């Protein structure tokens, strides 16, 4: 059974290899190869899942030692996979959602001449992501981590003929590097602290290390998570990453890769549990990001960017939950899974809308689409209800639990975090309602473009509709399935541990408050976008709106502080190098040159001059001799 774990990764890896090296011959069948291998991986995952379910809760960890990777004395890195409940959850999410999106892409990328390559990249992503979640040590995880970064880079810049896409890919790659550096430093710290970076030794001995070191490791892991999961302060790349094809946004930048940071934090829970300061930092990052992303999401007119802001915000929820410690780990993962369903569904819906609207992304040019694409409308609507936390749908269960857990943190922190989460819920309701209203309700606002091509909104082909429907079903029922009887809790508890916090407010109060927030958010959105027609050109808006449109000035901040600062730093370093370092070196050289030039004049070639020196030397010798005698 353990061998299936290796096959799990091998299938998409094989797909990537075949598709990327196969050449044009595979153009006609390449997408089906990719989809089939992805589905095969999902089937393997299902088999493993069933196998795990059949086992006792304590024995649900499968270890597969593939080969010794770097065996050097005290430095042992093995290609070993660990499949436990946490990995299993991710495997199913990745391969399941991944397969659906493969299927969707078959339709979405139909007219793209580089579709084979696209599927190769998608398979590469799946393989890397599976490697990330299945790795049994941090070094192997790092390989997967970099692999998904690479796949993300390749896919964001897939339409590399667009300068904006190329730039966005580069930006994502660069920002991710900052986080990756954090991860590599964390791994090095682990090695120096524990002498190993395998999950087993590190996590079981976490409590034995000093808190300072653990805090350092935790903060570095947090930095890594921030980079990968687009959390403040490394959040700036996610919005631009929407330049990639929509299936990519759905799979990588909504459902799976961006949640790798959450996985990392939850996986390293033992470290964070022993380092409260790092944990606090995690919650702060999560809370800030969930508000940040939500605010950005409110102002965007680009449907994908609005959804990207939403993704950022929802991952903020997860990170917040992960930072709460054992109270929140399970809910972080649960929200991650449900979010995987509904956000992927929303993105696919957005892709479907774009597909029908000649790739138009501006929501102000949509309107009234519900009659043109009913399936998209219904699936998108279900996803919408799920994300805002409509009672009974997945988002309701998972987000509610996180808000509860935030309050259960206790003390002032609990109130602040819980309040932020509640506020975030209200804003979520607002911006999602806004997206919904601007896209599917109201009057149609599209115009013929300059070439006179008027979009003809139409429903997407079946191959795209099926994934949307499946995901919509998941969005509706996943939460309930997980929550009723605390199934998900019991499933994950052996890995993450769980403790009930002592919430100062009762669960029902929290639910009630969430409902009130929800209604307020929806109400405001309805008042603003439902009752009156949406202007085709965005009004100037308040200062906050304008800032939010510019992603709350994140790029400006980065530019002013990092780019300018870096430029000034390098300029001053160059100046120092030119004047001081070169000055010293050149000065020494010039000094020696000048000295030699003067000394050279002594060598005038006249024998008599040399004789004078000899004679003078002889005189000095005599003088020295006499002096020595005198002394």
């Amino acid at each position, binding site marked *: 059974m353990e061998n299936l774990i290796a096959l799990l990764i091998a299938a998409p890896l094989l797909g990537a290899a075949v598709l990327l090296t196969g050449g044009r011959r595979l153009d006609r069948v390449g997408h089906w190869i990719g989809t089939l291998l992805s589905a095969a991986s999902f089937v393997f995952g299902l088999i493993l899942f069933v196998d795990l379910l059949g086992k006792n809760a304590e024995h649900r960890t499968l270890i597969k030692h593939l080969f010794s990777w770097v065996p050097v004395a005290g430095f042992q890195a093995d290609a070993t996979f660990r499949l436990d409940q946490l990995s299993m959850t991710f495997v199913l999410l990745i391969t399941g959602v991944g397969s659906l999106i493969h299927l969707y892409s078959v339709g979405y990328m139909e007219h793209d001449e580089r579709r084979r390559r696209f599927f190769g990249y998608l398979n590469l992503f799946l393989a890397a992501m599976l490697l990330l979640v299945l790795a049994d040590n941090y070094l192997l995880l790092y390989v997967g981590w970099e692999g998904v970064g690479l796949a993300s880079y390749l896919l964001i810049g897939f339409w590399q003929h667009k300068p904006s896409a190329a730039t966005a890919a580069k930006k994502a790659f660069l920002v991710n590097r900052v986080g990756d550096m954090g991860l590599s430093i964390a791994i090095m710290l682990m090695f120096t602290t524990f002498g190993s970076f395998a999950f087993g030794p590190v996590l079981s001995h976490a409590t034995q290390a000093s808190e300072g070191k653990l805090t350092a490791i935790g903060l570095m892991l947090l930095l890594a998570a921030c980079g990968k999961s687009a959390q403040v302060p490394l959040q700036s790349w996610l919005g631009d990453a929407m330049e990639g094809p929509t299936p990519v946004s759905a799979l990588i930048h909504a459902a799976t890769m961006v949640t790798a940071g959450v996985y990392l934090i939850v996986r390293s829970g033992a470290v964070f549990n022993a380092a409260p300061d790092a944990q606090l930092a995690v919650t702060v990052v999560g809370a800030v990001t969930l508000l940040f992303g939500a605010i950005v999401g409110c102002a965007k007119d680009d449907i994908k960017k609005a959804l990207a802001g939403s993704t950022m915000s929802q991952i903020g929820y997860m990170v917040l939950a992960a930072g709460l410690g054992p109270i929140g780990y399970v809910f972080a993962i649960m929200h991650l899974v449900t979010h995987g369903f509904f956000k992927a569904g929303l993105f696919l819906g957005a892709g479907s809308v774009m597909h029908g609207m000649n790739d138009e992304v501006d929501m102000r040019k949509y309107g009234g689409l519900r009659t043109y694409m009913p399936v998209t409308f219904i699936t998108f609507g279900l996803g919408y209800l799920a994300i805002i936390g409509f009672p009974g749908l997945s988002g309701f269960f998972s987000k509610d639990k996180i808000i509860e857990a935030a309050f259960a943190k206790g003390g002032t922190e609990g109130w602040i975090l819980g309040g932020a989460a509640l506020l975030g819920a209200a804003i979520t309701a607002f911006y999602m309602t806004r997206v919904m209203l601007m896209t599917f309700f109201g009057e149609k606002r599209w115009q013929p473009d300059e070439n006179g091509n008027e979009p003809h909104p139409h429903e997407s082909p079946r191959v795209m509709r099926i994934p949307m429907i499946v995901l919509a079903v998941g969005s509706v029922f996943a939460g309930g399935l997980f929550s009723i009887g605390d199934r998900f809790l019991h499933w994950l508890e052996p890995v993450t541990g769980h403790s009930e916090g002592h919430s100062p407010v009762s669960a029902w109060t929290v639910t009630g408050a969430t409902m009130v927030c929800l209604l307020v958010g929806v109400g405001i959105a309805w008042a603003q976008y439902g009752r009156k027609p949406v202007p085709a050109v965005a009004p100037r808006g308040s200062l906050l709106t304008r800032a939010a449109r510019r992603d709350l000035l994140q790029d400006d901040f980065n530019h002013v502080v990092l780019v300018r600062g870096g430029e000034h730093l390098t300029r001053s370093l160059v100046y120092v190098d030119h004047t001081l370092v070169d000055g010293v070196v050149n000065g020494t050289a010039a000094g020696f040159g000048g000295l030699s030039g003067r000394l050279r004049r002594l*060598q*005038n*070639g*006249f*024998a*008599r001059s*040399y*004789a*004078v020196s000899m*004679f003078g030397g002889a005189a000095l010798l005599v003088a020295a001799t006499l002096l020595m005698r005198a002394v």
Partner: protein
Amino acid sequence: MNPVNYLYLAALLFTIGATGVLIRRNAIVVFMCIELMLNACNLAFVTFSRMHGNLDGQIIAFFTMVVAAAEVVVGLAIIVSLFRTRHSASVDDASLMKL
């Protein structure tokens, strides 16, 4: 008179010879100055011989003379061949050691 005066005289002659070597450009005169220095040394040796009451100093002076004779032979030969090639006996003209 103390015979040490011979030594002073030798020192004086030696110094004059050495300065002459440094000042004169004509190779022949330079060579004569060298002979002067050698002779000054010989005088010192002879005086030493007298001071110590044995003949070793004179033997050294004798050998000095022999060596000086050999040196003169070779040195003058060098001057002659130098003059032949350069048509000049100036030591400054032979300044090929300069870069």
